[in-house]
């Protein structure tokens, strides 16, 4: 019993939705993954940070709507992040609504501004070392969002077809065909 509870706690399939401490553990476990996902999709440090923060704010405020359907909370977080990324691609003036409320008090913290600046510079410097990735990312952004989603989840985030199907709420067959078609369009664009 103790073992199963521990396992559940580790992959967050079953957890107390009213416990802020548990959500804190979820945040610790998944923030870097969600931020990385947003960064690899949009290629901008500040926007990726806003998307990640907005994702966790929305998740925290809507945690009661989360239902375990065979996947851990990770798929749910990726789903929220994907929606936020799509909002950004639809409207380039993307300004997260919930995080916007917090950002004034957060941004006024000078120590944090220094951290942001350092991370932004590091991220931009690091990106220069990933030439092949940059090329793929630039071409991927020109594709329809439905192809961007599946390709980035499969090849940037290394998710399985089953996981992608859960994140995007699309049947596995649809994911496979979107992946195959998207990859072919991307290949032609890159050749």
């Amino acid at each position: 019993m103790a073992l199963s509870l521990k396992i559940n706690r580790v992959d967050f399939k079953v957890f107390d939705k009213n416990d802020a401490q548990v959500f804190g553990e979820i945040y610790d476990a998944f923030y870097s993954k969600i931020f990385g996902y947003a960064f690899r999709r949009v290629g901008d440090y500040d926007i990726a940070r806003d998307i990640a923060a907005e994702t966790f704010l929305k998740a925290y405020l809507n945690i009661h709507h989360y239902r375990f359907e065979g996947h851990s909370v990770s798929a749910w977080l990726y789903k929220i992040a994907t929606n936020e990324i799509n909002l950004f691609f639809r409207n380039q003036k993307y300004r997260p609504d919930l995080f916007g409320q917090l950002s004034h008090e957060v941004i006024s913290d000078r120590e944090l501004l220094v951290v942001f600046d350092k991370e932004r510079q590091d991220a931009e410097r690091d990106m220069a070392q990933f030439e092949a990735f940059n090329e793929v990312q630039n071409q991927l952004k020109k594709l329809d969002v439905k192809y961007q989603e599946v390709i980035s989840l499969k090849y940037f985030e290394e998710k399985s077809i089953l996981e992608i199907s859960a994140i995007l709420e699309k049947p596995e067959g649809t994911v496979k065909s979107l992946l195959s078609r998207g990859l072919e369009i991307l290949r032609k664009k890159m050749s």
Partner: protein
Amino acid sequence: MENHEEFEKRMQGLKKPTPATQHQAYLKVPILNTRKSAAIGWWLVLFPLLLLAFLGMKEIFKSDNHVVDTFFDTLTVFDRAHGGWFSPLLFFLFPLIAAGMNLLSLLNIIYDRNTNELIVTIKLRFWNLFLIGIGTSVALIIGFYAVTENMIEKSMQDMERLRHIEHLK
């Protein structure tokens, strides 16, 4: 030119950047506090609003509402025993605080040194604006009710006094 399989292999072996997330720790506390601040805003207006609705129903349907009567009787007893500060706090100050808190979350004031201008922007967010409207309305209605009640009571006392003087004459 690469074929589909070769391209897929290249994608599978793609080296990806993993940016640092030291900022993660700084955002955690504000994120975990959002639910509390949102809830506080609601609680500050919810209770007076509920009582206002009960009072409105009582006036419209002219029905006896024992819950409201009992509540106001208890409140009167409590107020008399503790200097009468609780009712104004609950019905006037709390809704005003809720309205103020929500207004502050929408306001952004920046001083531009170059143009010597104060730039005030107000974000349009439905729930914040809704709470500002409700909080202000509750405070105004209760305030107006308290003032008129006070005036009526005062004039009644004056009339009583006049009647008493006339009686003495």
